[in-house]
C-alpha cells in the first residue's frame, strides 16, 4: 500500500472486486472517491442495458455501494474517447487479420490515461482498480508489477502495457488476496455484490458475441472466403476470418483424412489456412510495440516465461530484444496457438517485465 490519508479514485464497476477494493481503501484511511466510466454502448446490439459493463443496473449497484461506504460516486461520460480508441482498435485489428485484445488498449488509453488524468485533476494522488495484480517497490525506487496472489485470477497480463508513470499512481488493493477471500470480504463488509458472477467477455459487445459485433461494424471482415491448405489446395469455404482462432479444430466443416486445424489467416486473400496437427505450433514469435515496465528490458537476451494470451499459462522461453520496441521469443516447447494481435507478456516468475503485440506469422 502506498501513502495513507491521500485521495484515491477507485474505478468502480458495481462488481465484487472493485467494490472490495474501495472498501479496503476506506478501511485503510484513504480519502476515497468512486468513479465509473460510461463506456460506449451499441444501440444496434441492445444499447447500454445489454453491455457487459456499466449498465444502468451496475451503476445503481456501484452507487449504492459507494453510499454504503460513505464515499462520493460519479459517472463519467467516456463514450467518445472509448469508441475512438478501444473499439476502433478492436475493429482495425480484425480488419488487418489480427485478433486484438482491446482490454490492454483500454488500460493504457482509457483507465490509466484518460481516467487517471481525470483523477489527478480532481486532486487525487492515486487511481485504484479491482485488478488482481500487485505493486511492489523495486530496488531502484520504482515499482514492480507482480502477478496477483491468486494465479487463477491474475490480471497482470492486461496491465503489462503500463509504465512507471502509471504504476507510481496505481493501486490494486485486491491483488494481495485470493478471489475466495475477496468474496468473503465482500460478505463480511455487507456489500451486496458477493454472489455476482465474474464479468466475462468484452464489455462493449452488448447482446451477442464479438462475431455479431463485427458483422455489424466491420462486415468486410466477416465475408466468406476460401479455406486452403499450406500447399494451396482449396478445401472449402469459411464464413469470415474473424470467426476463427489459431489452433481451432472444431467447426471448420471439412472432411479430410485427418483432423485439420487453423494455422493462420491471410487477410489479403481472405483465406483461412489450415493444416494437420504436426503443422500446428511454432516455437517462436516476434512482438512489436514493446513496453518494458521498468523502462528498459532486463538484458538484450534473457530467460523468461511468456504468456501468449490472457488465459494461457506462462511458458519458458528465451527472449531476444531486437529493437527499442520489438523482441523475439523462442519457446522451449512449440506453442499451438500463437495468435497475431494478442499480447506476448514477459514474466520473471511473479514479476511482469513487459509486453508486446504478437506480429503476423509471415513477418516473424
Amino acid at each position, binding site marked *: 500500500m502506498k501513502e495513507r490519508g491521500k485521495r484515491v479514485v477507485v474505478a468502480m464497476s458495481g462488481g465484487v472486486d472493485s467494490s472490495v477494493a474501495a472498501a479496503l481503501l476506506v478501511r485503510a484511511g484513504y480519502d476515497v472517491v468512486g468513479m465509473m466510466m460510461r463506456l460506449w454502448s451499441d444501440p444496434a446490439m441492445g444499447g447500454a442495458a445489454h453491455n457487459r459493463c456499466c449498465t444502468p443496473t451496475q451503476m445503481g449497484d456501484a452507487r449504492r455501494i459507494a453510499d454504503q461506504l460513505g464515499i462520493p460516486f460519479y459517472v463519467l461520460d467516456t463514450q467518445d474517447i472509448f469508441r475512438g480508441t478501444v473499439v476502433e482498435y478492436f475493429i482495425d485489428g480484425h480488419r488487418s487479420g489480427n485478433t486484438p485484445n482491446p482490454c490492454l488498449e483500454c488500460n493504457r488509453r482509457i483507465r490509466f490515461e484518460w481516467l487517471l488524468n481525470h483523477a489527478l485533476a*480532481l486532486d487525487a494522488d492515486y487511481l485504484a482498480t479491482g485488478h488482481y495484480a500487485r505493486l511492489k517497490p523495486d530496488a531502484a525506487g520504482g515499482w514492480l508489477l507482480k502477478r496477483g496472489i491468486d494465479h487463477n485470477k491474475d490480471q497482470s497480463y492486461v496491465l503489462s502495457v503500463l509504465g512507471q508513470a502509471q504504476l507510481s499512481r496505481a493501486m490494486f488493493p485486491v491483488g494481495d488476496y485470493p478471489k475466495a477471500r475477496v468474496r468473503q470480504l465482500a460478505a463480511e463488509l455487507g456489500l451486496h455484490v458477493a454472489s455476482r458472477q465474474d464479468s466475462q467477455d468484452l464489455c462493449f459487445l452488448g447482446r451477442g458475441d464479438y462475431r455479431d459485433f463485427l458483422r455489424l461494424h466491420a462486415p468486410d471482415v466477416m465475408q466468406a472466403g476460401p479455406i486452403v491448405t499450406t500447399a494451396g489446395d482449396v478445401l472449402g469455404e469459411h464464413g469470415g476470418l474473424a470467426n476463427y482462432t489459431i489452433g481451432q479444430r472444431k467447426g471448420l466443416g471439412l472432411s479430410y483424412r485427418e483432423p485439420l486445424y487453423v494455422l493462420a489467416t491471410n487477410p489479403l486473400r481472405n483465406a483461412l489456412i489450415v493444416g494437420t496437427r504436426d503443422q500446428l505450433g511454432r516455437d517462436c514469435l516476434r512482438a512489436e510495440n514493446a513496453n518494458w515496465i521498468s523502462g528498459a528490458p532486463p538484458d538484450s537476451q534473457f530467460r523468461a516465461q511468456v504468456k501468449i494470451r490472457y488465459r494461457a499459462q506462462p511458458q519458458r522461453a528465451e527472449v531476444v530484444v531486437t529493437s527499442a520496441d520489438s523482441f523475439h521469443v523462442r519457446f522451449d516447447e512449440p506453442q499451438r496457438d500463437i495468435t497475431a494481435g494478442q499480447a506476448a507478456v514477459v514474466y520473471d516468475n511473479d514479476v511482469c517485465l513487459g509486453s508486446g503485440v504478437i506480429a503476423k506469422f509471415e513477418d516473424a
Partner: protein
Amino acid sequence: MRERRQVYLDHSASTPIDVRVQKAMLPFFGEVYGNSSSAHQYGRAAERAVEDARERVAAILRCQAAEVVFTGGGSESDNLAVRGAGWRSRQLGKSNRLITSPVEHSAVTQTIRQMDALMGFEAEFVPVDSSGLVDEAAFEQACRQGGAIASVIYANNELGSINDLTRLSLIARRHGVPFHSDAVQAGGQMTLDVGALGVDMLSLSAHKFYGPKGVGILYIREGIELASAITGGGHEHGQRAGTHNTAGIVGLAKALELAHDENAERSAHFSRLRNRLVAGVLQAVSGAELSGHPVQRLPSHASFVLPGIDANALLMHLDMWGISASSGSACKVGDPAPSEILLALGYSPEAAKCGLRLSVGTSTTTSDIDYVVDVLADASKKLRNLYANDALRENGRQSAAKPAAVPER
C-alpha cells in the same frame, strides 16, 4: 489551500423547508390526522386546515378560494392543465392544437408530445429568442388558428428568463385560447396576481419556495372547464381526486405567505448575491457567458455556458469541494444529452453540454459566493486542460506502445 465548505447553490432544484413552515406542518403529522372528506370532528379539523390554507393562497393569488386546486406538485399541475384543457376541447369538438414553447418544463413538453403522438392532438411550438423568451408575433400567429390550450412558462428553470405573461395572455385571450403558465420557478419570487398576469391557469410547487415537496397548486380561473385527469372521489371540485395532503397543503400556504411577506428583502438579498456571482464567474472563467436574459430574469438565478468545460465533470469537481449546483445536461448515468433548452436558443450541441446553473437562496452568504467563484476558476482551468488533451489524443488512435506520460505533481 482553501478550506472546504458546504455551499448549496441549487435552490432552483429545491429549497430547504423554512423552520416556520415545518412548525406549521407539525400538528398535521400528529394530532390532526383525519381525512378532510370525513364528516366527523377529525375530518372537520382537517377540512378546516385545508380550506383555511386555500383562502390564504387565494389572497396572495388575488383570486377566489374555489379557483385554487391543490395537487401533488408542479408536474401534476401541468399535467392536469394541459390534459384537462385538451380533453375538454375534444369533448366539445373544438381545437386540437396545443400551443407551447420549446423551452418549457418537461412536465408540459412531454405531456404535449404524448398527446400529439398518441391521441391525435397537434403540438405547436412557438419559437423563442436568444434569451429564451417567447416571440410574441409568432405566438399571436399560432393563437390566431385557435387552440385547446397555450402553455408558456413564467420563468424558465434553466435560464431564469421571465416571460411577459401579461402581454402573452392578452394575445391568447384575444383569440379565445385558454392560457396556462408553469410558474413553478417564479413562485415565491415574482408576482402571482393572476388578474394582473391574465392567466387562466397557473402551476405552482411548494418546495421551490421553502415549502415541502409533493404539494402544489393549479389555479383554474372560474369559467375555465377542464376534463379531470385524475378521477376518483370528488375532491377539489372534481378537478383532482385524492385525499388531501393536509400537512403539505398547510405547509404550502405558510411558505407562500412568508415568501409574499418577505418578498422585498428576499429579492434584494438574492439579486445582490446573484449579481456578485455573475460578475465573479464572468471574470474568473474565460469565455464564460451568461445564458438567458441579462436583466429580465429571476433574482436568485444565474446560468452560464462555459465553453470547453463538460458540465458533468464540472459538477463533480464542484461537488468534491462541497458545492451543489446543476446543469441542463446533467445526469447521473454518464450519458449526458445536450440541453434541449440551450439547443432551442441556438447553441451548438457541444456548447449545450456546457451549461451551469447556480441559484442562490435565503441562507446564501457573500463568502459562499466568493468561495464558489474561486473553486470555479480553478476547476474550469483543470478541466479545460484535460479536455484539450483528449481532443488531441482522439486523433491519434492506435498510439505507439509507450505509455503516455502522466504529469508528475
